[in-house]
């Protein structure tokens, strides 16, 4: 499967209540970021954790977002960023800049 998002594209991380083995931390849900790099596809850990260990490949991305947007009282420098890996099914296109 080709990647849905490319480097530099703006994406919003879904806000979703998801029990189980979820690798999208709560603190980034709902935030907008930019694709930092496109990674290969991997088994979906949300299913792999329950024994489904084939046929669930999903694209993985590295997403970058400004620290100042994540934490309203962030005390560091304005250019500081947070980067993390997010699976494609947690991402949706975003129109606005990550601020």
């Amino acid at each position: 499967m080709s990647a849905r998002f490319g480097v530099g594209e703006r994406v919003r991380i879904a806000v979703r209540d998801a029990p189980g083995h979820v690798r999208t931390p709560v603190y980034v849900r709902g935030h907008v970021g930019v694709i930092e790099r496109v990674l290969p596809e991997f088994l979906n850990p949300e299913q792999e954790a329950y024994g489904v260990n084939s046929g669930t490949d999903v694209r993985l991305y590295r997403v970058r977002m400004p620290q100042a947007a994540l934490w309203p009282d962030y005390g560091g420098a304005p250019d500081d960023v947070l980067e993390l890996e997010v699976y494609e099914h947690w991402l949706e296109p975003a129109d606005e800049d990550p601020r």
Partner: protein
Amino acid sequence: MSDAHAAVETAGGPPDYFAVLVESLRELLVAKGLIGADEVRAMIETLDAHGPTIGAGLVARAWIDPDFKARLLDDATAVVEQSGIDNYDDTRFIVLEQTPREHNLVVCTLCSCYPRPLLGLPPDWYKNRPYRSRAVREPRAVLAEFGTQVPDDVRIRVHDSTANMRYLVMPMRPAGTEGWPEHRLAELVTRDSMIGVSTARTP
């Protein structure tokens, strides 16, 4: 090297719920014959055979060989495998370069993801909640507790190791090491400098 610890490294207390759970699971799996005690021992031996000197060797070589450095930054997984390092669990690696403009810091907020084939087992503080929660929220304060002052005009990139990739930080080569051979350079590359909480030792 000093024995001083950052406040975030302090743990302690009796084994918690999960420590007891892991030990019980191991005993049950062995008792029921699903895995052998020798397999457990062999895996522990593999884990013990890996430590920060492996990552330090890669960094030192990258410091003196620009072509190797470029390949390491481009596709660390391939370089690790070509270097004869036992990548015993098929880990995928990304190497992050410290520069005068950018300081990289690695954390796993969800658990304890760590580039084990290159650095061995993570230190306790890396797995504990104070580091995991504070490294993303106030990285500069955490770095200061490790004795690392990052100027405001240097961007901090915090990497939350949430999924399949594992991160190794390549610290900057210290001044005054011109002409040093690789094995001497490698001694300057500490575990903490490859997590990003400190810089390489200075000669």
